[in-house]
């Protein structure tokens, strides 16, 4: 039978573990949504879309505009934003990315320029003021003394549902099969009669749509501003590199590893809470030193 002091320490640790789990799950789910969208288009079309998180930022602004300026219900605003951002993504693909698709460096530069342009446009329209969107569900749940906002729980659930939906799309549908085949080998997929270019475009739509979903689930928890795409971009790149470029499974697991790493830092080193991003990136570097292809990536030699 532990002493009272011992029991207090045990209780305090269990609180902390619950906190870490909640916080890690939220971070991880958002990173997973972003990273899987990014990995999808990279895997299927070898497009490194650095504007991916900028689409997430624009989606957040669309939701803000819908709820605050047009007065529509947040859920409806989210659905409209996801559709709108998918269409914008497809237009961007057709106009800016498709013509230079075969030149990877050019795509890299074009997409970062696109992201900067989106940032400046949002800055011009909405200024640099910080904005927010109301929570879909107010209040919080208290589990053994740990407070978890309902909105956070909703975010985790919706994110996991969307991820399950993406998994079903990829594994259970003909489109998913086409995307996976193209990701495996573009040339062979082409020879087998698949319209690789069309698959790439549809994948771009799904990918940007996922960025829109990420914006929708995060926006009630986040502060909307024109620069909100930068930190997630770094984390998303870290996740996909950690998981293995183009590997969806790797992105999913990598996202939760980094999400939990961030939470651990905040709880274990309060004075170094600002280091959470850096620690996550250090984990990525360590993994790469040991396994350059990432956790679930294909070795570069093998790929060549």
């Amino acid at each position, binding site marked *: 039978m532990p002493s009272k002091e011992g029991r207090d320490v045990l209780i305090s640790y269990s609180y902390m573990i619950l906190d870490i789990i909640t916080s890690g799950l939220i971070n991880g789910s958002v990173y997973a949504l972003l990273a899987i969208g990014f990995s999808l288009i990279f895997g299927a079309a070898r497009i490194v879309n650095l504007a991916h998180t900028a689409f997430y930022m624009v989606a957040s602004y669309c939701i803000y505009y819908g709820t605050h300026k047009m007065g529509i219900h947040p859920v409806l605003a989210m659905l409209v934003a996801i559709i709108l951002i998918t269409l914008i993504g497809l237009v961007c693909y057709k106009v800016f990315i498709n013509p230079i698709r075969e030149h990877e460096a050019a795509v890299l530069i074009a997409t970062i320029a696109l992201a900067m342009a989106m940032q400046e446009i949002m800055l011009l329209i909405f200024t640099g003021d*910080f904005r927010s969107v109301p929570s879909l569900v107010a209040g919080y749940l208290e589990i053994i003394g740990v407070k978890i906002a309902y909105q956070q729980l909703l975010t985790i659930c919706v994110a996991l549902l969307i991820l399950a939906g993406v998994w079903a799309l990829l594994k259970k549908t003909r489109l998913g099969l086409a995307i996976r085949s193209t990701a495996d080998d573009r040339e062979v997929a082409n020879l087998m009669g698949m319209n690789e270019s069309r698959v790439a475009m549809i994948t771009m739509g799904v990918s940007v749509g996922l960025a829109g979903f990420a914006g929708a689930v995060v926006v009630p928890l986040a502060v909307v501003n024109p620069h909100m795409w930068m930190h997630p971009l770094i984390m998303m790149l870290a996740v996909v590199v950690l998981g293995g470029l183009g590997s969806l499974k790797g992105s999913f697991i990598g996202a939760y590893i980094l999400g939990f790493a961030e939470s651990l830092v905040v709880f274990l080193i309060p004075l170094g809470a600002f280091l959470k*991003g850096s620690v996550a990136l250090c984990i990525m570097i360590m993994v790469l030193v040991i396994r350059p292809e990432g956790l679930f990536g294909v070795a570069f030699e093998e790929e060549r």
Partner: protein
Amino acid sequence: MKKTSFLLSILLAAFLLMAVSPAAWGAKVIKIGVIGPMNFVQGRGHWAGATMAAEEINARGGLWVGKKQMKVELVQADSNEFLSVTDATNAMELLLTRNKVDFIVGGFRTEAVLAMQDMAMDYKKIFLGCGAASDEICTRVAEDYNTYKYWFRQTPINSTNLGKTSFIHVGTVGAIMKKYLNIPKIKAAVVAEKAQWTEGISKVSPAVLSKMGMEVVGVWRPSQVATDVTAELSAIQRSGAHIIFNWFSASVGITFARQAGELKIPAMRVGINVEAQKDGFWVATQGMGNYEMTLNTYARGVEVNELTAPFMNRYIERFSETPTYNAGTYDAIIYNLAPVIEEAETLDADKIVAIMENREFAVPSGKIAYTKDAQGRHLHDIKWGPGYQTALGVQWQDGELKGVWPNRWKAAEGAPEITYKGIVPYKIAPWIIEKYKQ
């Protein structure tokens, strides 16, 4: 021949046009550069304050510079200093070389202001700072007077005094909680965003708060742009803190207030939260920022002196928002530059500096006097204390930003009590009362 005459006529017409163009009127206009991050609230405040001042001066015909009456022309420069110090220095370069301004007002971020200050000093242009609080900007004047004498701080009070005032605020809140909730010893959590301006305060806070009789339960340093601070809040709640002494200037101030309100963390938040100084804070936190207390310069309904209400009313009527302290560009032009130019009867910077550094004058936020350091050297920093600049303590109370400090404040033992007109009592959040009254 006919063609030559035609060309000559065109040239003559062009010369005549140039002669009557605004550039030629330049001699009759005082150009004031207004520099700030114009896409952000701070820059908008700079511009709004300066616009109001220029309109008032020009409505009365301009400023008398000796026997010549000159109108004021404002030149806007977007420093974009939140994102790039280089953009800020480029904007300053344009003001100095292309626009050839006579004076400069504005600036916000210390890192950018330090660089812009150097440039203005090179051109011997008077630069009135209306944003950066760092002490260093003014200690430069004392250390190298001949180079930096053209710099003056207009607003806010410097970092040291901001810290001093914030400790007074936290002490006040601690005393109120102690008295009304019967808490024998107040526990405080220090939360300071990771930024240059909070380095000192995060180090000294535990010692100072301990000296004030509080128990410090920990120091947390979230990122300036953290989008989730529930982890920090959970840890703070578990520590049993009654007060969160927070220091925020960026978006984390909104995230922190919103999540703390959403989770009903049983600790009152007090300190500096720049976002909470703005009208938009209530909407940005979806009302969850209720009971947040922060240091501020202005509050609706609070009158520091006879100039406050007229200024506030005109500003709110003109711009439909409460001024932030960056609107101190108004004071810089109307109460500082304008009378000094008229007194000096010249735009000569050296003559203006000589008058400016020895003046005492009232502005809507108090009285301004320029200080000297311990060795008697000019700092061109503004004096803090009763009768001068004290700043305010403001609290969000059900959607309104109310002034709550100074309320019967005694600056020293035996000193008279100070309460500004319009100050209301501080409120403790109901869930905290409920928790500690039990």
